[in-house]
């Protein structure tokens, strides 16, 4: 039974392009709208931003975004507004704070630590010459290679 409802719900997922025909008072606002609508997550959907989702809540949030932009709010203020109501979940770019330190710092840390380890490892190289073959062994190698290439 649960699977039936799951299926029903899956079939109801929004599957069409969402196009809002807002009139912006300046092109800069439109650019900010595009950027922010892709940074905000639809609270209800299966991993979609509010720009791409046609769920009712996504539509409402787009309207709110439009209104707030026209009202002159900054990006930080708008994000804070959304987070206060829906939690950090609604941001696709996690805030840089104590909790997310691991996330934001690990790429750089991994790379630096890896490079240091690599350089240290390479510095330890043994100055070893490749093993020399005796004249007899060299003749054997030549014979074998000729046989192989034939």
């Amino acid at each position, binding site marked *: 039974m649960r699977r039936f409802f799951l299926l029903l719900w899956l079939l109801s997922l929004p599957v069409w392009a969402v196009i809002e025909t807002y009139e912006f008072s300046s092109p800069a606002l439109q650019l900010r709208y595009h950027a922010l609508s892709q940074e905000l997550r639809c*609270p*209800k959907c299966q991993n979609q931003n509010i720009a791409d989702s046609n*769920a*009712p*809540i996504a539509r*409402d949030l787009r309207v*709110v975004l439009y209104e707030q932009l026209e009202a002159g709010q900054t990006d930080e203020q708008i994000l804070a507004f959304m*987070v*206060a*109501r*829906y*939690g950090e*979940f609604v941001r696709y770019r996690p805030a840089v704070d104590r909790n997310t330190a691991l996330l934001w710092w690990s790429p750089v840390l991994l790379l630096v630590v890896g490079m240091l380890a690599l350089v240290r490892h390479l510095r330890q190289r043994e100055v070893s010459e490749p093993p020399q073959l005796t004249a007899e062994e060299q003749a054997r190698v030549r014979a074998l290679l000729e046989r192989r290439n034939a």
Partner: protein
Amino acid sequence: MPVKRFLPLGVFALLALLLFRGLSIDPTALPAARLGQPFPEFSLPVLQTEGTVGATALDPRPALVNVWATWCYSCRVEHPYLLELARRGVPIFGLNYKDDNDKAREWLAQLGNPYRLNVVDAAGTLGLDLGVYGAPETYVLDERGDIVHRHVGVLDQAVFERDFMRWFPRQGSQGASD
């Protein structure tokens, strides 16, 4: 160094533990962002009478605030249980979310009215302030008027017993009445 060789295995073991823990977590469950905060202020009309009300109208507490609408199928499914809870003496306030007044009144007349009061949020502004993302949702207000819990989805006996007993200890069982 022998320890270094076991590092990949160790890291994988941690990953496996994390994934195992993940199997019992619901990734879609979103706790209310306003948890622990007072119910947002508002000034909205009510369904049955004239005039507007604010958050002070949500009294007595502790109480439930149920977000519902006539276009919401699951709301119809949970409605009988809400009537039962009301019978047991649980104060329930309704938030009629982005709905039509006439349809809402008709629904309540037909199916029964478990709500002490029904706030009409036609534009969805209170819902936005609460962090509502889909009906039905049920919020729990404690004595001070703070939001202490939110349940998204149909409210039934199993959910009530599991999550709501903290604030309504006497109304949890069948046959209880106040």
